C-alpha cells in the first residue's frame, strides 16, 4: 500500500528535479534572435518574454540585438553575430550565474551580487563580477577582451600560464590564445565602443508590395 502512495510522490519529486532553473527573461529582441532550449537540438526564433533556463542558448544575427534580464535585475546585451549560453544554479535564495560567450560582443550591467556569483566564461578566460558595467568581446579566434566601465572585475586565463588579475574602471584586459593576460588603461576608443554598446536605436523600413501587402523590416542602427 505504501509503495503505491510513494510512487506519485516520487514522480512529482523527479519532475521537480528535472525542471531546469529559470535564470532570466528576454526583454528586447531586435531583428534575428534565435533561442535553443537546453533539452532540444533545434534553434527557433526567440520571442519577447521568453524565459531563459539553465543551459539555454541565445544567438543573434547581423544588426540584431537581444536584451536579457536576469532574475536579480542584472542585464546583458547580446550584440550582433554573437552566441551565448546561459547557466544558472539556485541554492536557497541565491542564484549563481554563468554566461558562456562563444563568440561576439556582450555588454553587461551587473547588480551588486551580495553572496551570489556572476561569472562570464569564454574559450580562453573566466571573469568574476560583483556589480559593474562594461563589455566583453570574443572574436572568431576565441581570444577574450573585456572593458570595465565601472567597478572591478576579477579575471583569470583558462589556458597557458593561467594568469589572473583585477580589471578596474577605465581599463581593458585581453587574454590571447596562449593564455597571456594584458591589462591596460583603456582609451577613448573603448569608451566610445561602450557608449555604442548601450544604444538600442532601431531603424525600421516599411515595405509595401504591389499586392497591397505591407511588412516592417526592423534592424539595429
Amino acid at each position, binding site marked *: 500500500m505504501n509503495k503505491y502512495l510513494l510512487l506519485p510522490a516520487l514522480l512529482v519529486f523527479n519532475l521537480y528535479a528535472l*525542471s531546469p*532553473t*529559470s535564470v532570466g*527573461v528576454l*526583454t*528586447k529582441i531586435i531583428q534575428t534572435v534565435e533561442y535553443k532550449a537546453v533539452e532540444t537540438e533545434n534553434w527557433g526564433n526567440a520571442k*519577447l*518574454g521568453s*524565459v531563459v533556463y539553465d543551459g539555454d542558448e541565445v544567438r543573434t544575427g547581423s544588426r540584431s540585438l537581444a536584451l536579457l*534580464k536576469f*532574475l*536579480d*535585475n542584472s542585464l546583458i546585451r547580446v550584440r550582433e553575430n554573437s552566441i551565448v549560453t546561459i547557466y544558472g544554479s*539556485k541554492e536557497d*535564495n541565491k*542564484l549563481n550565474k554563468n554566461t558562456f560567450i562563444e563568440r561576439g560582443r556582450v555588454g553587461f550591467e551587473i547588480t551588486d551580487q551580495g553572496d551570489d556569483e556572476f561569472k562570464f566564461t569564454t574559450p580562453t578566460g573566466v571573469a568574476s563580477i560583483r556589480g559593474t558595467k562594461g563589455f566583453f568581446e570574443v572574436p572568431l579566434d576565441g581570444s577574450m577582451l573585456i572593458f570595465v566601465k*565601472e*567597478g*572591478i572585475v576579477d579575471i583569470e586565463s583558462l589556458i597557458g600560464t593561467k594568469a589572473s588579475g583585477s580589471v*578596474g*574602471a*577605465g*581599463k581593458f584586459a585581453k587574454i590571447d590564445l596562449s593564455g597571456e593576460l594584458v591589462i591596460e*588603461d583603456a582609451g*577613448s576608443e573603448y*569608451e566610445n565602443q561602450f*557608449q555604442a554598446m548601450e544604444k538600442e*536605436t*532601431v531603424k*525600421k523600413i516599411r515595405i509595401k508590395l504591389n499586392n497591397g501587402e505591407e511588412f516592417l523590416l526592423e534592424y539595429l542602427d
Partner: protein
Amino acid sequence: MIKERSFPWYFSLFITFALITFAQPSDVISRIEIKQAISNQPIEIRADLFNASEINSVFIAFKTFGETEFTRREMEIRSSAAFGVIPAEFAVPPSIEYYLLISMLDGELRTYPFGSPDQTPPERISISERTEFDDGVLILTPSPGEKVAQDELLITLSFINAKDDIHIKSTKLFLGFEDITEYALFAEDLIIFSGFNYPEKISMREQLIKIEIYDSLGNLKNTKTRSYTLVSSSYLLAMEDQFNYNIDLKGETRNENFNDESTWYNNIDARFKGNYNDLKVDAKIYATSEEKNYRQPQNRYSAKISTDWFDLSFGDSYPTYPELILSGKRVRGFDAGIYLGFFSLQASYGEITREIEGSLLQTYPVDSTSALLQSDVIEIDQSKYGQPFGRVALGEYSRNLLAIRPSFNAGETFQFGLTLLKSGDDKSSIEFGKKPKENLVLGTDLRLRFDNSRIEIKGEAAMSFQNSDISTGTLSDAQIDTVFGGNGPIDIDPDIVKNFKSIFGKFMDINQFFGPWNPEELSSLAAEASLGLNYFNNNIRAKYIYRGNDYTSFGQSFLRTDVAGFNIVDRIRMLNNKVFLSLGYERLQDNLQETKNATTTFQTINSSISIYPGEGIPNFTLGFARYDNSNDLSITDSTYLFSAIDDGTNKFYAQISHNFIWEIPHKANLYLSTSKRDDNSLRQNNTSNFSFSFNLRSEWNNYFTTHSGVTYYTSESAALPYEYSTVYFGVGLLLLENKLDLTATVSPSFGDFERQALDLVANYKVIDNFSLSLQLRLYRIPDVSTNSIIGLITRYSL
C-alpha cells in the same frame, strides 16, 4: 488616469508627511517640507515663507553626522517659498542637521530655528537606508517612466530574492484598476505579462502597474507600483530621431495680508526641456513682481545645452567647484565645461551681486571733522551736491566672479584639479558705496580611490588674497615707497610690496589694503585632507582641516575660518544591515595666528544607533552628542567676563517610526529630543530644551486620508524661557474621479507661541495637462492680527 494609492505611494507620502514640520516659532518661516530623506539621494527642502517680500535671500546650512562645520547652499525663492537641495553626497545615515539663514531686506540676519545653531539645536532629518524593495520582489520591466512601444509591453517580476513567507502564486497584477493576473505567466521565480496575451486594447498613455504581494496565509504583505508610458512603435521611432521637448508653464497670483497691509504678487514660471539624441536643452524663466531695483535679483532665468562631453549654460547657475573656493553661490553669466575623459575644463563667469544704488542723506563741509569720522560718511561729488562729504545709505557694488578649473582624471581612481577664482566689485557701478573689494583665490585638489573605491584619499587646499578697498586703485612704485617701509605708516619692506605688485598686479589692485603680505604664515590658507576606508561593514573617515583666519573666497561666503583640527567618524553596519551604529569624535582649535587672547578648544563626541528590525516591528534611532568648548582663561576673573569659555552640552534624541495596519494602513512617527548646556563661565549662560512630536497618518481608502499630530517644545535660559505646543489635524480627499484633490489642515499653537493656522489647498485637473490650484492660508495671532495668503496657480504642460 486614475490615481492609485499604494504602499510605495503611502511610503513616499509618509516620508513627506513625517518630515513636514509645523514651524517652530518664527515670523519668517511658516512650514518646512522635506520630500524624501534616503541615503545617497538628494534631499529637497521647501520652506514656506510668511512674507517673501521682506526677504533678500535664504541659505540652508547643513552638516552630516560627526561633522561640526555646516555647509551652506543658497535656496531659490519662488513665489511664497524657498526651495533648496542638500546634495546626495551629504545624505548619509543616520541623520543630517540643518538650519536656515534668512537675510532680510533691512540687512538683518535671522535663523530658523530661532537662535540656531548656538542657542537652539538645529533641526534633524533622519536619513533612511531603506528602499521600497524590502520584500525582495523586483520589477524587472518596464523601467520607471519608460516609454514602451505598444507591441513590446512586457511586465516581468522576479521573486528570486523574495522573503520566505511570500507566496508567489498569490500575487496579483493590476493595470490601473484592471486585474490582469489571469493573463500573466507564472514561471518559478518569475511572473511575466505580455501585452500580446491580453485581449483588451491597452490605451497609449501613461499607465500604472500595481502589484499586490501576499503571504501564504493570504495576508497582503506589500503593494508596489510602477508607472510607464505606452506609445506606438512609430512614435517611439520618431522620438529617437527628432527633437523631443516638453514645456511646463505655471502662473500664480497671490494676495498676502499681513498686519492689515495687503499686497498682491504675481509670478510666472516657465520650464523647457528638450533633447535630440545626446544633445539636451534645458531652459527656465521665473519672473516675479517681487523683482525690485533695491534688492538682489528675484527673477531667475537660465538656458543650458549639454552633451556627454560638454555643457554650456547662460543665466543663473550654481556652479560647483572645490568646496573651499566656490560652492552654492548663484552666478549670473556663463558656466561651461568640457569633459574629455582624461582632461576636463570648467569655467564660470558672471555677476554674483547686483548693484544697488545707495542714497544721499546729508551733506557735510570739509571741516566737519566729527561727522567725517562716522562710517556712513563718504566723499561725494562736490560739483554735483555742493559739499565734498555726505552721509549716505550705503549701496552695494556690482560684484563679478571668474572661476576656472582644469582637471586631470583617470576613471574613478584619480582626479587632480587646479582652480583660480578672481572676483571683485565694480567701482563705477554705484555712486554711494564704500570700500569696494577684490579677491583672488588659487587652489588645488586631489582625489585618489583604490580597491573599488573602498579606499579614498582626498585633499584640497586654497590660498586667498584680498584687497579690502580698491577705491584708490593700484599704487605707483613711488607711492609704495612713501606708504611702506621706514618712511611710511606701514612697516613693510617696499620691495616686498613691489614684488607682490609684479606678480598679482595683473589680477588685482595692489595698495595698502592688500593682504596678506606674509602668506608663508598661512593666515590665508584653507586646506583639508581626508582618508576614507570602507571595509568589514565599517565606513571610516578621518579628516584634518586647517582654515587660516584671513582666508576669504567671494565664492564661498560662509566658510568657518580660524580653526584647525581633525574629526573621525565610523559608520558600522551590523546584522545584515538591520543595525547601524555611528560614532564620531572631533577636536578643533582656533586662534591659529594668535590674533585672540586665548585659544579655544571645541570637542564633540557623537553617537547614534539605528535599528531596522524588519516588517511589523518599529524602527528605532537613539542618539547622544556631547559638545565641550573651553579656553585657558580664568572663568572666575571678571576681566575675562566675555572671553573666558568653559561650557558643555549634552544632547539626546530618539525617534521611533512604525508602519502598521490596524483595520487600515497607518504610519506613525515619534521624535524626542533634549539638550542641556552648562556654562561654567561667569556669564552662566545655561540653557536647556526639550521637544517632542508625534505624527500619525491614516489611509482610510483610496480617496480619504487623515493626518494628525502634536508638537511640544520647551526651553529654559536666563534670557528667555519659552514653552509652546501645537496640535494639528488634516484631511486629504480625492473627488470627481480623482480630478479634484483637496487638503485641509488646522494647527493651533498654545503657550508662549500662540497662533491658529488654517491651510486649505484645492487642486483641480481640468484636463490632463492643465490644472488649477487654489491655496488659502490663515494665521491668527490672538489679540494681534489675522493674516492671510490667498493664491491661485495655473499649470499647463505641453
